[in-house]
């Protein structure tokens, strides 16, 4: 899993700067006998909570001195509350980290008036990559025929709140591929939405995880397009389990003008991260390095990799702390103009702006 050229450049610069800096000799970091804490910015029971507890438990085993680990849930405002608290109150002593998800570093969210944190200042421990969303359509040929025929009844696209990657991808397809869609918004959750697709209440849905998508494909749905994952050459390619399913970027090729292409690239950057763990800004290098090393060890552990692949998909990917620093700094730097293009597109095609 790779990151975009601009993000990669920033990462390289950061690495180089760190390498040339004169680092004073530091005592070896050890957390022996200490308790480290991970604040989870959501309620118990959600995806961020499960991921943080799963990775966090392994992190503690890999931190020098094998400290005790505790988890604190601090939900509220889709993660804003915990991030505000973390940025304002938590010291960079290496004993407290924050676990969050893509939403809290999204440039859209960062513009909300309640946000009082700057994730660009965090020292990221690492993160997991957001797998390319799969958009599915009912196998019924009549429904598929309606997708590109605007003289017919629009195809019903099931959605929760219009905020998911696949909902946004559908907006690009509506604008530039001429998809004839109508969003049916309001499903209470992924389960409800996927079940609605299974029983034919909605004709299209989207999801990322293999264990959600595969049962649908084995039943009445077919993968029609995927966002794809970035390869080493910055190109979006088919996911391992979804060979033969067209990649959205390929379909849009040649159809976007310069402004649209820039907005599309910016939007893709916003879809890069899935979950992350960070230390407060100002955490010393040696402590940050200890956490990052532990994180890298966890992510490379064959047992963890096997488990993650089973849970998310064969092309499960992850980012180092330095990569995350760069990705998030880039997201923070997104301008209002960059966002305005896509916001207008969403409004035009009936998706709410939250």
């Amino acid at each position, binding site marked *: 899993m790779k990151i975009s050229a601009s993000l990669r450049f920033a990462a390289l610069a950061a690495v180089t700067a760190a390498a040339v800096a004169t680092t004073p000799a530091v005592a070896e970091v050890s957390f022996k006998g200490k308790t480290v804490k991970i604040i989870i910015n959501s309620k118990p029971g959600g995806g961020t909570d499960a991921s943080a507890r799963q990775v966090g438990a392994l992190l503690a085993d890999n931190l020098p001195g094998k400290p005790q680990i505790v988890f604190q849930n601090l939900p509220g405002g889709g993660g804003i509350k915990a991030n505000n608290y973390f940025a304002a109150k938590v010291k960079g002593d290496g004993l407290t980290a924050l676990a969050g998800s893509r939403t809290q570093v999204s440039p859209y969210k960062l513009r909300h008036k309640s946000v009082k944190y700057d994730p660009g200042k965090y020292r990221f421990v690492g993160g997991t990559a957001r797998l390319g969303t799969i958009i599915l359509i009912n196998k019924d040929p009549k429904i598929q025929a309606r997708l590109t025929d605007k003289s017919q009844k629009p195809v019903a696209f099931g959605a929760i709140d219009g905020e998911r990657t696949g909902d946004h991808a559908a907006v690009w397809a509506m604008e530039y591929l001429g998809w004839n869609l109508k969003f049916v918004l*309001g499903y209470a959750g992924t389960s409800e939405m996927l079940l609605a697709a299974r029983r034919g209440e909605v004709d299209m849905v989207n999801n990322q995880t293999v264990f959600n998508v595969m049962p649908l494909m084995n039943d009445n749905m077919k993968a029609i397009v995927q966002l794809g994952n970035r390869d080493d050459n910055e190109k979006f390619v088919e996911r391992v389990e979804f060979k033969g399913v067209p990649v959205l970027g390929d379909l849009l090729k040649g159809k976007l003008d310069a402004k649209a292409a820039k907005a599309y690239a910016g939007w893709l950057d916003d879809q890069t991260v899935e979950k992350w763990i960070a230390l407060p800004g100002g955490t010393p290098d040696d402590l940050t390095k200890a956490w990052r090393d532990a994180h890298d060890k966890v992510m490379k552990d064959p047992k963890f990799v096997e488990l993650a692949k089973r849970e998310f998909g064969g092309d499960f990917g992850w980012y180092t702390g330095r990569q995350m620093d760069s990705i998030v700094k880039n997201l923070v730097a997104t301008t209002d103009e960059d966002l305005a293009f896509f916001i207008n597109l969403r409004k035009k095609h009936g998706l709410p702006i939250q």
Partner: protein
Amino acid sequence: MKDLYDPSAMLNGFLGLMTPAGIALIIAGTVVCSIFAAMPGIGTLLLLSMVLPYAMKLDPFLCIALLISIGAVGGTASTFSSVLIAVPGTAGSQATILDGHPMAKRGEAARAFGAAYVGSAVGGLFGGLVFVLSLPVMKPLVFALGSPEFMMLVLWGLSAVGVLSGNAPVKGLMAAALGLGLSLIGTDARTGIERFTFEDYYLWNGIHLVLIALGIFAVPELVDLSVRRTSVAEAGRIGKGQWEGAKDVFRHWWLVLRSSVVGVWVGMIPGLGSSVADWFAYAHAVQTEKNPEKFGTGDVRGVLAPESANNAKEGGDLIPSILFGVPGGTSMALMLTAFISVGIQPGEKMLGEQLPYLYAMLWVLIIANLIATSISMGFANSFAKLSLAPFYAIVPMTLIFCVVAAFSANYAWADLLVLAIFSVVGIIMKRHGWPRPPLLVAVVLGPQLQNYLWLTVERYEPQEWMLRPGVMAFALLIAITVAVPIIRNRRRKARGMHMDLASEGPKVGPKGDIAIVAFYLALAAFAVSQAVAWPPKAAVPVYAFAAFGSALAIAQLAISLIALRRSDQVAHVATEEDREKSRRFREIILWIGGLGAGIIIIGFTVTLFLFPLLYARRYGGGWKLALGMGISAVAILIGIFDTLIHIIWPEPLVELLWDAIFPGK
């Protein structure tokens, strides 16, 4: 489907669990879950989250043993606080309060516990049985139902508002309209509009149900107890024991089975939670049982229905999870994450080569329910004896539970403010004879109604959804369940269910009702004034609430004015007893205010030590008891909420002041 009921798969599923580790995990999961469920504000979801990383490293049978045992029995032990102190232990035991707590007041807490525990076990076992038996036929049935049918199902639940309103139908409907209005608070998914959030993210997801339940039910009951100054069991004795309650399950076996079906039904629809299951079952009982006027006064049937439904729901939850890999609720979503990570594949595979795992789940459901019931029955009489404890022990400790449980909703100061607001609403409603259950039912079902209504309207043409067989069948069911009790009551000239015991506070007249109606109309006007700026999709539900609520309010105004004219003709002279009740009422309100102020100024730990100590000392408790209560409160706070859950407590004023004066120290 012969292979589905393969005896060797059933046996292998059982044998897979019957290892020392498997047995130990089932027992541990059941016992710890029972403790968590009995403590308001913690809940089994948190426990599942905590054990998840561990469960993901286990052998598949052990993973099933641990997680299913935790998920299966949350509804059993949660009855304890619902019956004893009117505080719902979990979302699935709210309706139990309506009859369970009056039973405790009457000295029948042990009987209520016995009925609840055995009813829960029967419901749990029945849910498991239905789960297995329905596998061959459930897939087409689940697929035949869509948003229009779910909307009708929710409407069926809401139709219970009529019978839950007892002898004050207009007030009941107004309360329900208010509940629907409250359910509109939060971000509207269709438009992105933040409705009534006052530009603060605290209300983005609406008001947490537990805050409303605590405010509406628990706090007013505690205020009453404090005014009454007796033990919870008013007569000071415990009557029939838990085995009488167990017998009640068999006396009312038909109701228990019907309620279990309701629980399974709700469980198999993803998104409808435990709180829906218990209210549906309760409403069903009131609408279909003889002598509905007895409900709300401590009728054991009012305990049996919700308790059998909330455990049966767990079996229902397994249906979409196992058949389609679609979790029925949040706890099932967590379990599925762990199952998949240990190699268990829901869906076709589980109905084939992994069939022993499916039967292992069923065995755990059975064993865990039996263990939980045995343990709970063993403690039932001891729990019941707490209903004889003096008010100066019960009131402060329960208030502390309420505060901590409320704070656990979102870990925010605002939780306490919302609790305070709904406590005031609950106290006023109780004093003025406004039925409270319709409000809570509407809050529970409001979001579901809104969602399914919009999905139906967005997805289907009117003639398309209205003519669906399922919709018509539900419409018929609604008509029957609404009409039958009305006709039956008219024939028997019976009255509706009692629903709310008279308040112990000072008596109030129709003037209070007029003030409430005026406030209600002002609230509706405020809602409309906000909604005019929103797009129609976000505003229309608000207009509907305001129009419906206002029409009812005007009707109630007329009723109250007539009552006022009549009451003017009879001069009411306050007795010494009335004055004493008023004084006690003011006292407890001051105590509650003091508790809130203490938490804000000096923080949770110190206040939670001082409050029970001072309260107990003020009303006759000895130093030993008072100190014991204070220490216990702090021990619970530190032991569970600090050490186990690691709650981030908000900083009290003194700490903020200290930081301001001595920054960095």
